């Protein structure tokens, strides 16, 4: 089966061709056109600007995905497109384009939940996944723990009650005045810093649930900076970054491990854009292996937004008549 995936939920325009043969996934192409440079001066994604660039990029990206995969539209068995969550103006462009393709190519189409697709990105490795599994999905807009009972059964068991982890990185980067996107910048600064230089809170770490809260941590950084000289030294920037990152990572790891033990998970999965964070990958991986459970995460290129994971999710998702396909910017895993 050949699935054509399309992803435009935020600021990456992506199209991919994934072939599935006896439950093995082969990514024939995965073209991603990133707009990060366009949004950098604004300190975040500007929806209207993102939409205009999706319009500009989507057809060339689709064309490129077909060329790289060396397939023709008539070889495609199914189209999969992100319907949410995301920015409505961005989602609409991918969905409308996918509908037109479904109509003109005469192919079935499935609407994909972007968060679910981040989990299915792990299927692209073709590793055996033992259930139940716990997935930590961390990105700019989400921080969630999902219980996976089997390949079609997902249940959200915890989430952030305020800011997402990626958002906390962005906001702290702004407080430190070091640029956007915050995640990679803070991580880089943190490499030379002392994780114990500042004692930031580990929010909700002791609470008996699987929820997160990062808004207070951001505020704690704010208070700390207020007591420091206006012009921070390189050492202070590095120490603040390292201490902050450590607080975020420790909280994410502790809650994920707590969920894994509670639900007797055999596998722990890390997914979403923040899964690219090296410290998180290392610390979570170490803890999970210590518990003798499997630790899985997608290849680097399938962590950030991409259409290959959408196509993978398409394999497990029922078709919808194109007439009924709708975007839902607030779509959730129930």
């Amino acid at each position, binding site marked *: 089966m050949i699935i054509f995936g399309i992803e435009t939920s935020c600021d990456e325009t992506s199209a991919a061709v994934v072939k599935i043969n006896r439950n093995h996934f082969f990514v024939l192409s995965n073209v991603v056109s990133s707009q990060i440079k366009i949004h950098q001066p604004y300190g975040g*994604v500007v*929806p*209207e600007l993102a939409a205009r660039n999706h319009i500009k990029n989507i057809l060339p990206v689709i064309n490129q995905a077909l060329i790289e995969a060396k397939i023709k539209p008539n070889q495609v068995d199914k189209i999969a497109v992100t319907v949410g969550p995301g*920015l*409505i*103006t961005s989602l609409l462009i991918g969905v409308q384009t996918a509908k037109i393709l479904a109509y003109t190519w005469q192919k079935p189409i499935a609407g994909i939940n972007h968060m679910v697709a981040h989990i299915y990105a792990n299927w692209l490795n073709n590793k055996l996944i033992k259930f139940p599994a716990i997935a930590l999905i961390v990105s700019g807009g989400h921080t969630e723990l999902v219980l996976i009972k089997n390949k079609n059964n997902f249940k959200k068991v915890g989430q*952030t009650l305020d800011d997402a982890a990626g958002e906390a990185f962005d906001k702290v980067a702004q407080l430190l005045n070091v640029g956007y996107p915050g995640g990679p910048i803070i991580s880089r600064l943190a490499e030379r810093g002392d994780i114990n230089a500042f004692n930031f809170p580990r929010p909700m770490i002791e609470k008996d649930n699987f929820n997160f809260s990062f808004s207070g941590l951001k*505020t704690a950084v704010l208070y700390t900076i207020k007591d420091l000289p206006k012009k921070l030294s390189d050492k202070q920037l590095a120490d603040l970054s390292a201490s902050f990152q450590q607080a975020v990572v420790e909280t994410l790891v502790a809650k994920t491990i707590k969920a894994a033990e509670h639900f007797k998970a055999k596998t722990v999965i890390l997914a979403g854009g923040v899964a690219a964070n090296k410290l998180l990958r290392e610390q979570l991986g170490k803890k999970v292996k210590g518990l003798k459970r499997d630790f899985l995460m997608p290849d680097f290129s399938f962590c950030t937004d991409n259409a290959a994971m959408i196509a993978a999710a398409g394999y497990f998702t029922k078709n919808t008549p194109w007439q009924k396909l709708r975007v839902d*910017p607030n779509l959730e895993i129930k």
Partner: protein
Amino acid sequence: MKYLTDSENQTIQLGKKIATKLKGGEVIGLVGNLGAGKTTLIKGIAKGLGIKKPITSPTFVLMKVYPTKGKIKKLIHIDCYRVKSAKEIEAIGATEYFGQKDTVIVIEWAEKIKSILSRQKIEINIKLIDKDEREIIIKKYG
């Protein structure tokens, strides 16, 4: 009206109290710095409107819509933290909700989109006095 709260819980209680006075159709602008407690106050308002789902930050998507039960059918939570011009808020369709009788709109960083807030009826200023204490001033127009 001026209120002082000295804990997160008190700010939430004040939000709940504000919710009991809402009739629908209100556009509430919240003004205050990062970490002042805007989202906390909105959590209280949402609780007061009977919303059980967690109110998470809309910074990333700019707008979140929460269905409510009762006379007020929807709470719209808008965050202009990243917004440079009011056009961006119009572009995501937020203004379609403005003035709808069954909808309450709360806007964080409302001062950034003043030009489209002619229907704003309530402005809430939150100021951090110190670590826990907050001064919350509620002004009504029209």
